């Protein structure tokens, strides 16, 4: 192999590791990447070793795992990268649905409240997913059971909920306008009068 050929061979193996979603074995490199090149398994192993050494001090290392070799970030950077990735994915974090916000608002303002009561007020079923999200987020907790048939759980907000919204107590939640001020009652009152 000429030096130029050898350089391209190394570059190709290096690039292949970077584009592959999965670890690559020597055998796989030979059949899927280098099928048109006259290279032996040993030559491929030599190139891999060369790359392992080349990346020894880099932010990513070429490491061997069960099914072959792959590039992975070095352990020393894990904390910084965890923060970075969370930041990147945050931009993708979905907004909470209206149903979730309404459920949370009802728990905050009407606690302790059962899921059935929330459903009665909202007029629609509350999905288990919403309750799960709110519980996982530690914004609501179960504080007991209502002594009615089925003994449904009673939900209330947590200290974390207050902390998140920078409140010291629930009484700091904005006061809600009475119905009349929302213009809904006005009409009916006027009609009654």
């Amino acid at each position, binding site marked *: 192999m000429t030096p130029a050929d050898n350089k391209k061979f190394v570059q190709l193996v290096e*690039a292949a590791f*970077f584009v592959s979603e999965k670890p690559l074995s020597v055998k796989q490199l030979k059949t899927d990447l280098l099928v048109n090149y006259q290279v032996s398994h040993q030559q491929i192993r030599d190139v891999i070793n060369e790359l392992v050494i080349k990346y020894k001090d880099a932010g*990513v290392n070429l490491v061997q795992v069960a099914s072959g070799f*792959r*590039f*992975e*970030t*070095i352990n020393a950077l*894990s904390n910084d*990268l*965890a*923060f970075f*990735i*969370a930041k990147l994915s*945050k931009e993708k*974090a979905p*907004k*909470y649905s*209206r149903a979730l*916000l*309404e459920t*949370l*608002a*009802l728990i*905050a*303002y*009407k*606690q*302790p409240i059962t899921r059935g009561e929330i459903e*009665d*007020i*909202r*007029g629609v079923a509350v999905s288990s997913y919403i309750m799960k999200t709110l519980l996982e987020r530690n914004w609501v*907790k179960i*504080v*007991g*059971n*209502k*002594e*009615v048939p089925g003994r449904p759980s*009673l939900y*209330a*907000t947590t200290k974390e909920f207050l902390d*998140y*919204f920078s*409140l010291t*107590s*629930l*009484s*700091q*939640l*904005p*006061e*809600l*306008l*009475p*119905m009349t001020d*929302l213009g*809904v*009652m006005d009409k009916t009152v006027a009609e009654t009068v």
Partner: protein
Amino acid sequence: MQQVLPLALIRGEVIVEKPHDLFIPPEALEVILESFEGPLDLLLYLIRKQKFDILDMPIAPIATQYMKYIEVMKEIKMELAAEYLVMAAILMEIKSRLLLPKQAVEEEDGDPRAELVRRLQEYEVIKNAAQQLDQIPRLERDVFQVHAELAEDFQSAVFQTDVELHELVSALQGILKRTKAFEHHHIQKESLSTRERMALILEKLKRAATTTVAFVEFSELFTVNEGRQGVVVTFLAILELIKESLIECVQTQVFGQLRVRLPQ
């Protein structure tokens, strides 16, 4: 630079010949429509490759030919074929105007072919631009995005979706508008502190329920250093909880301590 028109098979048999004018054999129409990006593209091809002369175009046969297309168009990409018809009409108009005495032509806005030529030139520029764009190295075809895996011990941090307080309030106001459940519930700050206290008391009783005692002394629910207001809030919370049958208040002996527990 010019793309060579692929000679095509129709239904596996007929080889379509390169068109020599704007006629297209009806049975080849579909193939032609796929080979060219439209009548401008076809015209450009004819001018470049076949030395097509707009002036030499015979009118009558074209008219007959194009009527046949209408039949074919019923089955295939009608819209696209219609554009070829429009182009044929434009060409025929140009030709008929050129056949008129020169003076009559000049009364109009110059050479009737100028507009068509301008359009052809403009289209050719874009056609070339598209070909060049196709040559630029691009992701997925010429260069590839790279990535490395995260270290084995990597633990992801999670950022949660943000919620603003006003979103919460407007959510509740949305419910208020929809339902009359709150008609008589003007939610006030005082009632909110009561509700908060209700949740706290319930939690306390729930913890007690797991012990052998199962109840809490009435007095234990009060924190004296909260002051009078705190005591009132707690008292209101207990009353509300009893009213809603969420707790029970029991007295085991006359004048004995009041005890509070979850309903048995």
